[in-house]
């Protein structure tokens, strides 16, 4: 008689908890309970009608975990509306908000490129520094080119050093003249000079 495989005991089928209706989740975005707000923000994933409420909540949300959840849900949309509305917060006085928004924008390669001309020309150089942070992580084939442009053209040394920091992981020997030119543009900036000089031996080896 052949071996008969024992039937595995029947496991009760796991049933995913049903997602509350969008109206309920939207109401919970304003709930005093941070866990409920966080779950609501994540639960609104993929619901385009929830975007305005989520964008509005970014302005007032003071819990970093909830804010992070809101931004995760918003970033997944990767639309011009979301990117443009989030970019406003790059100039925020709240460090937690501007860095969280920069991290979210860095995951939005479809919509962020259209924003870049305005961000690179922002009169507030701190916004341009944050833009370099975004480009450092943006999964887009032109991110390197935009960073090169910042290094070449931006008039503020902190922006240029931020762009160089973002550029270096992908830089090659071809970028050496541009980096050396940046040092010449800001001869009194010790950090910029140090950064370039420290990077040159490695870059020269990539020729």
């Amino acid at each position: 008689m052949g071996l008969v495989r024992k039937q595995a005991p029947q496991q009760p089928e796991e049933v995913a908890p049903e997602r509350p209706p969008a109206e309920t989740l939207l109401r919970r975005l304003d709930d005093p309970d941070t866990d409920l707000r966080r779950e609501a923000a994540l639960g609104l994933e993929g619901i385009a009608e929830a975007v305005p409420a989520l964008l509005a909540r970014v302005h007032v949300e003071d819990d970093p975990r909830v804010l992070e959840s809101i931004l995760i849900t918003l970033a997944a949309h990767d639309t011009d509306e979301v990117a443009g509305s989030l970019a406003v917060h790059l100039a925020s006085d709240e460090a937690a908000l501007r860095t969280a928004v920069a991290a979210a924008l860095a995951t939005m390669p479809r919509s962020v490129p259209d924003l870049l001309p305005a961000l690179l020309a922002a009169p507030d150089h701190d916004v341009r520094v944050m833009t370099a942070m975004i480009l450092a992580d943006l999964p887009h084939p032109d991110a390197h080119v935009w960073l090169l442009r910042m290094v070449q053209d931006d008039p503020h040394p902190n922006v240029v050093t931020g762009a160089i920091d973002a550029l270096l992981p992908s830089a090659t020997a071809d970028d050496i003249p541009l980096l050396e030119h940046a040092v010449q543009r800001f001869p009194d900036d010790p950090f910029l000079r140090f950064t370039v000089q420290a990077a040159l031996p490695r870059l020269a080896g990539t020729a």
Partner: protein
Amino acid sequence: MTSDTATGARVLVVDDAATVRLYHTTLLGGAGFAVNEAANGLEAVEAALGTDFDLFVVDVNMPKMNGYACVEALRSDTVGSDAPVVMISTEDRPGDADRAYQAGANLYLVKPVAGDRLVRVATMLTAGKDDVA
């Protein structure tokens, strides 16, 4: 990463930019400080729970935990560090320094900070700590 000397005061450099960490570590390490690095506020808090640092040099804009939140955590009962904190940032808009001091920083500097100035500040703030490492 650690750059140490036999007798230097212990400094934790906290910055998400690798180039900035290298710059500050090179400057302070060259001046005799024992330097550790952290890439964000969370790493800094974790490091501070295990080591009594004599000075923190902290950036503002960092992922995961920004500089202000990091300094508040360092000053909290959980970490309980009363070591001096120097915050260094590109942010020079009105109110940034106030925010840093509210969080518990001792000094707020705007980048770029000349190397000799950073070393001078670190030396002053860690005076009397030369034999702790």
